[in-house]
């Protein structure tokens, strides 16, 4: 593995090679550029490098600096802004007029906390030499925190190629893909069929596809009532908040949503604009939102952080240090964080746990047992939302939900309007925390 990585870095050093997504907001297009071998920002003091400026990375960078100002923090992100996946379904459904309220920049965060922000693509990591290779040069680190987000296992869908995201947007990384899918939805004729394909768990944001279903359905109900929404779900049942979503769909979108469980898309037919279920049934759509199965971002795969499942990164519960590469910590969707779901709030909470124990490790202090939270709201109509919440702790080296705590909203939707306002405050606070 080490050899592979080294030769990989060498290839990049010789000015050719495929750049890897080292960020949470990577666009859909394949960016091809080379890493540079020249060292930039020579290390003069203790340094933590954070890769990825999304829900996890921004918070990890900020909290390391909040906890110990003597540690230098460099945050590396490919883009100069970040678009939140949470709430992007509301844009898709036409409730939010633009993605602007979901977009943050890094300047205030960097200035407020003395974080050095480097806009670059991470193309390689050498765990032995404690070096990160980027498109702008190499950097040394004492500890590395990687919050790289997800990549798609498109090879599991026959016929999927570089053009497929344009034809059948995934919109599972908020930004241009979300805008594209919205445009296709708006352009769809009344009476058309909108298809959502949901991959097998685990994937980023377990309730996300079902909130999306609700948001597209409410748009169709109000603007294109003759249309159908066909949901083909690879899972045996709705993967999160199932009874609540089912009840909401029955109440509000009967006749619009055609939900088909245990329907795994194994191939596409681009010419027909259709998806093929288990190699047999063909489902044709005027608009197709194909969300492919997922794994940790490419940089995690190439840095040797991905475990035997070849998908996600195993970590030590209290520190989020990789069990495979010393000195590298993995947080957010890419990590196997036990009972914690792959959500924005989980990433926020994991980042804080990780930051505290990275600082403890660097200062020779004892590791502190983790304590974390997930809270997640999903809209089901224009002004109603449901939630799931849980508290996490570590036990025998595993992250578990605290027994007899947490849970979902009441079944009668008595709090749904209130929770919709709470959801907005959730977004406001979490994005403010990330950007200031």
């Amino acid at each position: 593995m080490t050899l592979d990585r080294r030769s990989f870095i060498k290839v990049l050093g010789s000015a050719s090679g495929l750049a890897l997504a080292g960020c949470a907001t990577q666009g859909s297009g394949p960016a091809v550029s080379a890493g540079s071998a020249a060292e930039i920002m020579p290390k003069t003091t203790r340094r933590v490098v954070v890769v990825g400026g999304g829900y996890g990375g921004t918070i990890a960078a900020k909290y390391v600096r909040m906890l110990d100002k003597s540690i230098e923090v460099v945050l590396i992100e490919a883009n100069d802004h970040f678009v939140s996946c949470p709430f992007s379904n509301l844009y898709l459904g036409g409730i939010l007029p633009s993605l602007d309220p979901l977009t943050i920049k890094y300047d205030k965060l960097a200035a407020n906390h003395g974080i050095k922000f480097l806009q670059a693509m991470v193309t390689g990591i050498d765990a032995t030499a404690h070096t990160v290779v980027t498109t702008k040069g190499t950097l040394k680190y004492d500890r590395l925190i990687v919050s790289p987000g997800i990549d798609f296992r498109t090879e599991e869908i026959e016929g999927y190629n570089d053009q497929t995201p344009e034809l059948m947007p995934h919109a599972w990384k908020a930004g241009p893909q979300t805008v594209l899918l919205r445009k296709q939805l708006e352009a769809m004729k009344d009476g058309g069929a909108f298809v959502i394909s949901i991959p097998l768990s685990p994937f980023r944001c377990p309730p996300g596809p079902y909130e999306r279903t609700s948001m597209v359905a409410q748009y169709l109900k109000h603007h294109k009532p003759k249309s159908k929404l066909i949901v083909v779900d690879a899972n045996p049942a709705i993967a999160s908040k199932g009874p609540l979503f089912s009840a909401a769909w029955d109440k509000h979108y009967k006749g619009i949503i055609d939900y088909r469980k245990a329907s795994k898309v194994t191939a596409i037919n681009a010419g027909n604009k259709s998806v093929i279920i288990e190699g047999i049934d063909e489902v044709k759509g005027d608009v197709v939102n194909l969300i492919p199965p997922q794994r940790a971002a490419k940089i995690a795969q190439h840095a040797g952080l991905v475990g035997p499942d070849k998908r996600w990164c195993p970590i030590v519960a209290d520190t989020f240090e990789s069990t495979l590469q010393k000195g590298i910590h993995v947080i957010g969707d890419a990590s196997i964080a036990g009972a914690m779901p792959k959500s924005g709030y989980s990433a926020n909470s994991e980042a804080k746990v990780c930051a505290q124990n990275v600082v403890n490790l660097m200062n020779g202090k004892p590791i502190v047992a983790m304590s974390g939270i997930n809270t997640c709201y999903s809209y089901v109509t224009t002004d109603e939302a449901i939630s799931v919440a849980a508290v996490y702790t570590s036990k025998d080296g595993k992250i578990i939900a605290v027994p007899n705590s947490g849970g979902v909203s009441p079944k009668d939707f008595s709090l749904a309007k209130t929770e919709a306002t709470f959801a907005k405050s959730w977004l406001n606070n979490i994005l403010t925390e990330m950007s200031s």
Partner: protein
Amino acid sequence: MKLKTSLASWALVAGCTLSGAALAAAPTPEMISFACAGCHGTNGGSAGLTMPSLANQSKSAIVDAMKKFKSGDRPSSIMGRLAKGYTDADFVAMGDFFSKQKFHATTQSLDPAKVKKGADLQEANCSRCHLDEGKDGKDDTPVMASQWLEYLKMQAALYDSGKRKMPKDMADKWNKLSKEDREALLHFFASVK
């Protein structure tokens, strides 16, 4: 096969020990409280609108609120579900952490006439418990200054509906006030910096 299984389980045990799980110190007040900041703002300074600031809040008010969320005495959506994940000692740790954070002054669009009216009313009605214009709390009386108006309105509505129970001293005063007076008080407390 048997040998393999037993070796594997030994490796697992060793892995757990090496991972630091057995060695980790109990969660600190920071470890427990940082997790709240995703909704309540960094160090408890909320960006609004329905999430209360916890920064500089009275320690006993936080402990009391968390206990009531946990028991269901105080109505909530997710707070009750979250509170069940913590012990009384955790609540004390949270109270300890947030009470030590810097006061979080907010800038809100408020009605100046209501703020002025509320300032006059609070002196006679609230100031015995909500000390120093709501900047200080007595015992488990919460700090009110600079809380977001939306949050204060939601709590007032819960009190008025009877879903959230008022302390007797408060009920004696609050229930005698008109709707307009109550709203003026909320504007006043939200304005205090």
